[in-house]
């Protein structure tokens, strides 16, 4: 191949001739998208073989955001690891915290108090909402609905304000920790949550007014990126990718955790199996999340938000002034940390993207032997070739968009 067979056409896109002939008599071209192409939702690189404008082969190249999170966790103590879990799927930090916290608690045989469980559910649902809002805003933007970004980020900001109120941080809250949660909900948080629950269904109606019957949105998504229920199951897809193909699989229903069995909600599914179906699933999920929030807030139990175990969590500030034992516990906890009994455990929770799991191996020391994150996006990205096959390049953008991969989650 000579140099003239490869040309760079800007935006990180290069074109190479393959020498093969396509169905329309033209030559197949290899196109390189990314990894900084604006429509690939982060640093995803795609190598696509095109016949005319039709996708004939597609190979995602990942790893451009590989952060070494799993290695880093091995070098951190059990309670320090929470900070790092926030940052792998950066659109749903509390859900990542939850998977890790549940795994550590299961290994230690600890049960958290009911109020902690309810607060965990509240934070998980708020996160699911904010993650879906970011998805809808950015996907809308990519398919030409600029105003969606403005509407969605407005509500996302109110969720982040609540995060800030309860944990002091907008995005990476580290709020859910092994043994409970960081702190109790403040009255202002509950007040903000009440207002949010009242306002949110109206906002979802607003989004639906803008998109559901919008002819441009419909023609860009209906029939695009089909993934049959059987394929979705075989390829291991989870979350809205699987439910958008008509499979009613939601870990909150199928394998409940943190008291989800006590809440009434429906599993959103759609039989359309295409990008539009996945959009409908997410809209429905947002409505169901608001329902769960309503129930959780109405019957928020009183009581402590942490386990009463001085070996695992620091003593309250007042105790440090009167009790020598408390000072010792405090010192030990912050110099050595606690150790977890040897063994391994896998816990999966449902994030906005699908099954977000955490596999933890302990060798009995105060640092994990191995922490593996089962990332939903990593698995959901693999059917991309099957979905994009024989579609146009522009449809590929819609397909990547509705797969809702977070590259931090893919590469970890």
């Amino acid at each position, binding site marked *: 191949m000579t140099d003239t067979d490869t040309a760079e056409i*800007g*935006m*990180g896109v290069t074109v190479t001739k393959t020498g093969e002939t396509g169905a329309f008599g033209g030559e197949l071209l290899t196109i390189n998208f990314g*990894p*900084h192409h*604006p429509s690939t939702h*982060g*640093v995803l690189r795609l190598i696509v073989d095109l016949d005319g404008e039709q996708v004939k082969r597609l190979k995602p190249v990942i*790893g*451009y*955001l*590989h*952060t*070494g*999170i799993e*290695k*880093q966790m091995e*070098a951190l103590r059990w309670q320090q690891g929470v*900070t*790092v879990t926030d*940052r792998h799927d*950066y*659109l749903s930090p509390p859900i990542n915290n939850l998977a890790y916290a549940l795994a550590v608690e299961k290994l230690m045989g600890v049960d958290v108090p009911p109020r902690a469980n309810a607060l965990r559910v509240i934070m998980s649902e708020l996160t699911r909402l904010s993650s879906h809002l*970011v998805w809808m*805003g*950015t996907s809308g933007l990519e398919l030409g609905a600029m105003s969606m*970004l*403005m509407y969605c*980020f*407005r509500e*996302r*900001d109110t969720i982040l304000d609540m995060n800030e109120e309860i944990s002091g941080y*907008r*995005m*990476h809250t580290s709020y859910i920790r092994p043994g409970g949660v960081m702190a109790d909900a403040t009255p202002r948080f509950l007040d903000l949550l009440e207002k949010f629950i009242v306002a949110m269904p109206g906002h979802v109606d607003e989004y639906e007014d803008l998109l559901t019957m919008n002819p441009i949105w419909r023609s860009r998504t209906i029939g695009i990126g089909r993934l049959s229920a059987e394929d979705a199951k075989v390829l291991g897809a989870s979350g809205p990718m699987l439910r958008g193909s008509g499979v009613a699989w939601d870990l909150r229903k199928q394998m409940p955790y943190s008291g989800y069995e006590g809440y009434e909600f429906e599993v959103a599914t759609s039989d359309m199996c295409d990008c539009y179906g996945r959009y409908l699933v997410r809209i429905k999920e947002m409505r169901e999340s608001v329902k769960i929030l309503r129930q959780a807030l109405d019957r928020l139990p009183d009581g402590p938000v942490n386990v009463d175990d001085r070996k695992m969590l620091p003593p309250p500030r007042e105790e440090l002034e009167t009790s020598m034992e408390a000072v010792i516990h405090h010192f030990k906890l912050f110099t050595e940390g606690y150790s977890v009994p040897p063994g391994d455990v896998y816990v999966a929770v449902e994030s906005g993207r699908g099954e977000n799991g955490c596999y933890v191996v302990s060798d009995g020391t105060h640092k994990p032997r191995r922490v593996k994150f089962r990332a939903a996006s990593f698995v959901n990205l693999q059917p991309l070739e099957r979905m994009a096959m024989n579609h146009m390049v522009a449809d590929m953008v819609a397909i990547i968009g509705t797969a809702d991969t977070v*590259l*931090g989650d893919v*590469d970890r």
Partner: protein
Amino acid sequence: MGLEALAESMGQNILTTSLGKLIGWGRGNSVWPAQFGLACCAIEMIATATAGVDIARFGSEAFRASPRQSDLMIVSGRVSQKMAPILRTIYDQMPEPKWVISMGACASTGGVFNNYALLQGVDKIVPVDVYIPGCPPRPEDLLNALMILQERIKAQGITPRQ
């Protein structure tokens, strides 16, 4: 003959300094960032462009998809060893004069990830003008950094990198 070379040949005089002020004012109020998101900070960067914070008030709402049309690179997030050469290529593709904002702890120092996979600070491969602390910084922090950069650009005159 470029503008910079012309200014150099003329030396410092009343014409070039007044022209420098005008050009600095123009450049400072129309800094176009490259649309280059990496990780968590990219989401806050998008939030900066939305109605609530509105970066358009400072003339920087035009996020350009092509590096050849942009003046500012906001390194928004962690830079992995695999991404580093690509980031440098994008920087090289941007026309002079160009500026870099290192957004967040990861881009500035590696943040909480002190390990094999990440570049410990993007200033190892590109010159950085403004660093923003935070993980991720608030959108207001990004606006503040932009304002600091604007002050600097306005003071620089015709030939920024000297």
